[in-house]
């Protein structure tokens, strides 16, 4: 993907560009709001990653100016302010998604893909991941022709993992998806839920599908 990164913090910008380039994207990094606005309005990008507190033109203004010019490039807003009000304001100004600092890099890439996909294709009715299929309409999960019974929470969790199949999903993302809360408790709530899901999905099969990535989260991956 061709990405524009507008971020004034040197350390964060550098690491994000490196990370994005290593994940196979073209990343254009600018540190100034005015420059970011020029580029975003003159060139074609698949997505823009926009910090809100910028020198020159502030992020909110870039957002509203781009949208008023009729530019519909998906925009992911990054900010240190994470209150509900700030989120609402950002989304109203035309952002496609909102990510509060600090965030996991894998969450950034997952959200980037989500906003690009949202603007392109309709969501699939059936998710597949190697031997595992999940039917969104009948709400059935089948692995190797064998149906697996899941609780609603487990189903929802598996659906989320399969949507981001092959990508790391953080505990925070799961929490947000399951209970609409960006809460990451002290107790290992998510781990326990994942373990139960794993017990149902992977038990009795030679190849484990759900893998834990230490310090980062979980990934569903089929060979």
């Amino acid at each position, binding site marked *: 993907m061709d990405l524009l990164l507008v971020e004034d913090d040197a350390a964060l910008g550098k690491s994000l560009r490196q990370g994005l380039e290593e994940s196979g994207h073209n990343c254009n990094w600018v540190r100034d709001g005015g420059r970011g606005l020029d580029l975003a309005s003159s060139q074609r990008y698949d997505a823009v990653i926009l910090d809100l507190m910028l020198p020159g033109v502030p992020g909110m203004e870039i957002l509203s100016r781009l949208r008023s010019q009729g530019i519909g490039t998906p925009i992911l807003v990054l900010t240190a302010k994470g209150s509900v009000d700030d989120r609402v304001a950002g989304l109203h100004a035309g952002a496609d998604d909102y990510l509060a600092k600090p965030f996991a890099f894998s969450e950034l890439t997952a959200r980037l893909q989500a906003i690009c996909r949202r603007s392109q294709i309709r969501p699939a009715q059936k998710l597949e991941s190697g031997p595992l299929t999940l039917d969104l309409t009948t709400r059935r999960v089948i692995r190797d022709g064998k149906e697996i019974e899941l609780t609603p929470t487990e189903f929802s969790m598996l659906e989320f993992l399969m949507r981001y199949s092959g990508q790391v999903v953080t505990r925070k993302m799961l929490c947000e998806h399951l209970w609409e809360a960006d809460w990451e408790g002290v107790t290992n709530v998510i781990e326990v839920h994942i373990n139960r899901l794993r017990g149902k999905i992977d038990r009795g099969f030679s190849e484990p599908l759900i893998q834990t990535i*230490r*310090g980062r989260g979980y990934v569903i991956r089929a060979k």
Partner: protein
Amino acid sequence: MLSARNKYFTKTIRFRLAVWNASVVILASMGTLFVLRESLRFALMSELDQVLIEDIRELALSLDAGGRADDPQVLEALNRKAQAHELHGWFVRLSNLREDGGTWSSNGAPELTDAMRLSRNKFPISLGNFRIVQDRYERGGLTVLVGSSLLPIQQDMSRIDGNALLICLGLVLVAPLCGYWLAGRATHPFADMIHATALLRPAKLSERLPVRGTNDELDQLAQQVNKLLDRIALYLETKRDFLANAAHELRTPLAAIRSTVEVALNEDRTPEEYQSVLEGLLDETANLANLVSQLLLLAETEADCLTVAAEFVELNELVSQSIEMFAPVAEDRGIQLRATQCDSLIVEGSRLHLRQVIINLVENAIKFTPEGGLIAISTTRQEDHSRAVLRVTDTGSGISAEDLPHIFERFFRSDRSRPRQGETRGTGLGLSICESVVQMHGGTITATSQAGKGTEMTVMLPLATTDVPERSILYGKALRKPLPHAASAE
């Protein structure tokens, strides 16, 4: 200083009080003097009139007796009377003495041409400088006129006027000065208060305004200001402590990160070792992020009123969600987690924040309850139907009596709240956040505990005043309504 005073001099309360005071005193005195002067004049005039009427009656009697008035002896007697009369300038005039219409006047009587025409019988009038009364007789056409000069009265009055003028002048000079002095005395405590207030500094909040003990309005004001200062001082103190504690709490994970990195860089390591170090660092940053977001949540809920729109929240929905969330965890640990009583209760407020309260309470309960224990969550309506009561009861290790009063303090962690294997240490903010959220919603949170037996956390929240019927589909949905300021529920 002086120029500043001059500039606003006319705006000071002292000046205005002095002006009002002087105006009232001057106007009231002038009015009184005027009324007094007029009454006096009226009294003098009516006395004179009385005398004149008496005289004319007497004359009528003596003249009537003779029927005719041209007796020289009578006239001579009248002349003498005019000279000896107690009133200066007294005179008598008789007209139509005889049939030929002649006129006789006593000595020193003035010419009064219009007198006959103007006056009615026995009715005193003023004519020029004279007061006259006349009487006409039916028989013989005799007219008697008695008069007296008004000069003595006028002299008296002008003397009185002169004195009154002097008094007024004195008042005009003295009243503002006295008023200014009095106003100065009255507003002097203001000046003291302004001076004392100007000396207050955020860093030196031990200073208080002087209370003079007179218990007047100014004293009350000073007392109120002092109370406000007490509260501000207490607030700032807790803020300072909080800031210091927060910084301290942030320092620990930072130190861990720093030392981890430094140790890792000390010598060359294998890629696996680097990987392990970096993963450890990720865990540490997750802890830091968790602490910071809890601090932010606390700051958000402390801001007295919710910035997000309030909604109607069904407590049971939050409870069942939390149970669903924690059920597997509890099961793994051999703890029973269940809802024992679920009254349908709707409160008004922030759904996310209220759920955080339940999550924190359940999380704490799980943390301190051993295998085989029971955690019960109940939602009931208070007997008088005014409040929702949420209870989280556990059969855990309990809180010691010495710890119990401190559990809602920020960063307070009981010595026994050591993390289990594979768990990170709590931030010590969980119950502070609960308290802050509950208070923001106008409720209370209390804890009772017996060491070794268990803990009961009780949250009371005001029920939403809503007409939503009990089984409405709107339950738990966002019926947007601005949240009343929780400040009233101090």
